[in-house]
């Protein structure tokens, strides 16, 4: 179920002094099976773009086509669309409201009309995917840590079994362990067949798990390509105030020091490149 974005622009509060052009002429396609990383400086329009993918915001110009259908057309079932394109908001832990984690995860599927056995299976399957201790299921979400709450929120969206999952800065503000675990969960979801749009500032994760990278700059799509293509343009990224992965930084430092290594995206790759350059056998 590809999502095609056609010359889409969005202006907040048009015609008032608060008017702000958040997106301008965005045009690209999210293909099935992509893990598309959406990166860009704060305020570049990432969250705005995310909310267009399931029709929470309506473009001021242009169209968004999901499965070939304009999602802002007259006879589109918004609820069905939101089930197919799941969206996890930034700081999603603040959307929890139920008495127990179980009930909160059940909120989405219940709205889809599920009940009884089917609902129970959905909730438990989604809960399993976010790797929380089993006893959490019957706890109040407000007793949990911020990181755990965020995973419950993710389970709440996963429980709707969306085909495309849009995650708005899911790891922002987590500790390193929580970050790694959540990134692993996202990676697993992707391998399980879900198309993922991941908004992130963590370039190491992006380099490691993304299949495609889109760079937004002040509301425009500045670059689109594979992680290798994008991160090889490190200077441009840095000019936009963005990071490059640590492995790439290291590769550059090595080259500056006279060791000819290509840009590498993961630790293993880098290890092999160094061994090759040094002429020693690699065990990685």
């Amino acid at each position, binding site marked *: 179920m590809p999502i095609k974005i056609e010359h889409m622009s969005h202006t907040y*509060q048009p015609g008032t*002094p608060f008017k702000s052009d958040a997106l301008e002429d965005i045009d690209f396609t999210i293909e099935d099976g992509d893990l598309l990383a959406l990166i860009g400086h704060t305020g570049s329009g990432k969250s705005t773009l995310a*909310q267009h993918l*399931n029709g*929470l915001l309506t473009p001021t110009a242009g169209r968004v086509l999901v499965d070939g259908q304009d999602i802002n057309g007259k006879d589109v079932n918004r*609820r069905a669309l*939101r*089930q197919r394109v*799941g*969206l*996890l*908001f930034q700081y*999603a832990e*603040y*959307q*929890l*409201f139920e008495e127990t984690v179980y009930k909160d995860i059940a*909120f*989405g599927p219940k*709205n*889809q009309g599920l009940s009884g056995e089917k609902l129970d299976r959905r909730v438990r399957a989604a809960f399993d995917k976010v790797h929380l201790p089993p006893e959490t299921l019957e706890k109040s979400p*407000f007793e949990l840590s911020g990181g755990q709450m965020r995973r419950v929120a993710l389970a*709440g*969206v996963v429980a*709707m079994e969306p085909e495309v999952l849009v995650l708005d800065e899911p790891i922002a503000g987590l500790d390193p362990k929580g970050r790694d675990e959540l990134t692993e969960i996202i990676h697993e979801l992707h391998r399980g067949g879900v198309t993922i749009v991941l908004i992130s500032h963590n370039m190491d994760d992006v380099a490691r798990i993304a299949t495609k990278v889109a760079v937004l700059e002040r509301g425009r799509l500045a670059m689109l390509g594979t992680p290798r293509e994008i991160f090889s343009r490190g200077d441009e990224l840095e000019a936009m105030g963005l990071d490059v992965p640590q492995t790439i930084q290291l590769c550059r430092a090595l080259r500056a020091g006279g060791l000819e290594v290509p840009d590498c995206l993961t630790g293993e790759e880098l290890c092999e490149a160094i061994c090759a350059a040094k002429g020693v056998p690699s065990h990685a």
Partner: protein
Amino acid sequence: MLKDITLGQYYPVESFVHSLDPRAKIVLTIVFMVAVFLGSSLFAAIPIVLFILLTARLANLPIKMLLKGIKPLRIILIFTFVLNLFFTAGDTILVEWWKIRITREGLMSAVRFSLRLVFLVTGASVLTLTTQPVALTDGLERLLSPLAKIGFPAHELAMMMSIALRFIPTLLEEADKIMKAQMARGADFESGNLIQRAKAMVPLLVPLFVSAFRRAGDLAMAMEARCYHGGRGRTRLRILKLGKNDLLAALGTCALVAAVILIG
């Protein structure tokens, strides 16, 4: 939808009204509200409408902005109108059908009360649209400060008000975000009967309250960390001064009161 609530929102342009002293604006708004209640005939609405249009013009406010402020009130307005229409005793019967009776007096008072409500909200909106919250509470505190001598908590009240005003847009934004997050999970805030709709609000209200309390706690902590200890001994950055424009505005408002009293 939530963005429609303009009460408490500042409209950042420059104008005659924006430049007035907040104390003058508060007092004149109260005078305006009194004038709204002074007029009992429907004709008294004419100078009031003219006054509002003139003020909007002098304040560089689009009329659309003022109308938007009334929109969230429509339920209360309809309620007021209907109650007055059916439950005002009177002699001149216009329509009579079964047990329902609409009298001339009822119709008059329905129109009168609805108009008053609209005028009051418009007056309050003009004040908040043209005055920054800080200036507003500053003015209020100064106006109330004589009462502080007899133990009235003028500063505390003003501080509470400014914090409340300051957080209205923040909370609205937050509500909007939570609403969208729940809509992304298939929540439906727009259809269903009254009970279903009230129930649909739970996923919005619980997180909103939780976050409001968290914010309040954080704010109190941050204020204390910066040695806030109430109003005693606090000096001000901006000293308020009354000027020629304030006098002009006062004269204009007096003219309105006079016109309303004359028309009766």
